[in-house]
């Protein structure tokens, strides 16, 4: 080609964005319901967050401030790559600060800093169907959703309890949205599930390969499935973050040597960094920093 192609603002053409926005609006109108949409091939592979990227591209305006995280961190390679993609195709301002972002695209985590009214959290979703591993056929699962027939999932959780004494699902832990639709929260750890409940932010879920969009409007009831005698339990960590001392954050285990040495640090890098100066001022120490 003689002239390099010129791409539209945020890559997708306006017609496609409008189609996706219509799917988003429908998803917001029916919280937790999976809306089929004509997903496009994006210039990054399926599985790399093409659903989230298409949702973000469709809602992004020139004044938006975008934050992209993967595993809670702004500097993981794929988060860097997606942030570059939008900085390049939409020339928008990006940030790593949760509180400054208007749109946050995420893979596998919900930020620790509570989200505010007006913010939008866009999830990258690999398998949108919470019943997929119990019933692989779309024709069957769509019918189950239509009839709100979720016995299969309850039986699965019950079998967990019968076998292990507790529910053995640690991420992609199924939630019930507004007492109607069973929803996969994307593979976020169940630690994050309670943050979805009554969140002031709009939460959008994009599954590109599977061609589905679903949504949680602000202040939607989102409850993790459980039983009266086996209530949902949030993951707890025994040690605080080795860098910032947080006891309320989700921690990554970092192997520090080959003799069993390990440390636990915040998976949310922004949260951790914001806390560190405060902590240093507070106790005058830097204990967490040189852990080896």
């Amino acid at each position: 080609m003689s002239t390099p192609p010129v791409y539209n603002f945020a890559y997708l053409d306006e017609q496609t964005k409008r189609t996706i926005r219509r799917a988003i609006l429908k998803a917001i109108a029916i919280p937790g319901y999976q809306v089929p949409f004509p997903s496009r091939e994006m210039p990054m592979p399926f599985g790399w967050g093409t659903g989230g990227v298409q949702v973000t591209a469709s809602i992004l305006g020139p004044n938006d401030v975008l934050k992209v995280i993967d595993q809670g961190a702004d500097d993981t390679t794929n988060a860097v790559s997606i942030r570059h993609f939008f900085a390049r195709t939409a020339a928008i301002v990006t940030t790593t600060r949760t509180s400054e972002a208007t749109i946050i695209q995420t893979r596998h985590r919900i930020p620790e800093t509570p989200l505010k009214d007006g913010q939008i959290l866009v999830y990258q979703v690999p398998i949108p169907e919470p019943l997929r591993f119990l019933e692989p056929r779309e024709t069957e699962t769509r019918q189950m959703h239509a009839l709100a027939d979720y016995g299969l999932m309850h039986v699965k959780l019950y079998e967990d309890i019968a076998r292990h004494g507790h529910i053995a699902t640690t991420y992609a832990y199924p939630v019930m949205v507004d007492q109607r639709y069973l929803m996969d929260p994307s593979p976020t750890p169940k630690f994050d599930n309670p943050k979805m409940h009554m969140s002031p932010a709009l939460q959008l879920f994009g599954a590109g390969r599977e061609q589905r969009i679903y949504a949680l409007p602000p202040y939607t009831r989102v409850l993790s499935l459980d039983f009266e005698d086996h209530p949902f339990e949030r993951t707890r960590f025994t040690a605080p973050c080795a860098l910032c001392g947080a006891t309320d954050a989700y921690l990554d285990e970092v192997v520090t040597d080959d003799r069993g040495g390990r440390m636990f640090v915040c998976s949310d890098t922004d949260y951790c960094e914001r806390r560190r100066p405060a902590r240093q001022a507070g106790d005058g120490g830097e204990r967490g920093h040189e852990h080896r």
Partner: protein
Amino acid sequence: MYVAVKGGEAAIAAAHELLARERRGDPSIPEISVEQVREQLTLAVNRVMCEASLYDPDLAAQAVLQARGDLIEAIFLLRAYRTTLPRLGYAQPVDTGAMQLRRRISATYKDLPGGQLLGPTFDYTHRLFDPGSPAPAPSEPRGRVQPVAEPTPHVTVLLDREGLIEANAAADAKPVGDITRDPLAFPADRDVRLQGLARADEGFLLGLAYSTQRGYGRTHPFAGEIRMGEVEVAFTPEELGFEVPLGRITLTECEMVNQFSGSAHAPPQFTRGYGLAFGHSERKAMVMALLDRALRSQDLGQAAKTPAQDPEFVLSHCDNVQASGFVEHLKLPHYVDFQAELALLRQLRAEWLLARGATCEASEPAPDSDGEAAR
């Protein structure tokens, strides 16, 4: 200080540089041109055009080069470009009956109107390395080089005259589906299924088609006809109201003729399986035709018990851009979910060991480790 996840930006830039260097190879060896790929690796170019659903030999050749010969990567490149192109409209259906034939064979009739035309085929070559480089092309090819001029009806038309083969379904008023514009939904009609198969991974379809021949959903196929050549593409712009020719494309078409013993509503007759592919893509057209017929099992009132007869199974997994994306995404970090599984596994092991210690006599089976696969 923990720095393993830092430096993503610098690492990505360095990786891109390394990739460019690897792609070029030894700089003392001349670089291949796009034209060379287009003219000399035509079957690779054809496959890329076919599975990317974009007929553009130059771009496909460029994609093959840029992808270092990885055809799935090249298909992905071309698809990602295709999706940005504006859609002007839909062409008229091409008339493969009017194809300027370069190859046409039938395995069901020894001779037939229009004749058998072997054309450029590997079929009867001996797979021996030519000494040195491949033999230079003969300057004057022997035999017929002019495309067949006489009318060459499809073999299935001949069978149709006697009612021996099911009639092609009459065109209905329903617009033809478009899987690049509408999400795939099940049950999927034949138009949508054929589109899915047309852009499906050749290797995946090959294995599935082979499975039907080995007994997993047998369809008793005969290669009624395979033809390859050029057809004209025409488009009717709304503002003009008449057909405008856009150009010619090369197509390979395969019509399989399959045995069928009849059902409550249909007498015994042959049934059809149809394959159509961009360029000279014979294997692809054949496996597509085999799969088309296998996927019609349910429509024809036959038991559909094997993977190749299951439209949801075949169509959900046949796209290599989707499949390779999801398989390869396992390379992306999964620290957070892994951490969650790690904690659970430690807990389950502790509980198991505790139970073991408490009830040494009772031979409890080990708990199944059927945690969900990492995604």
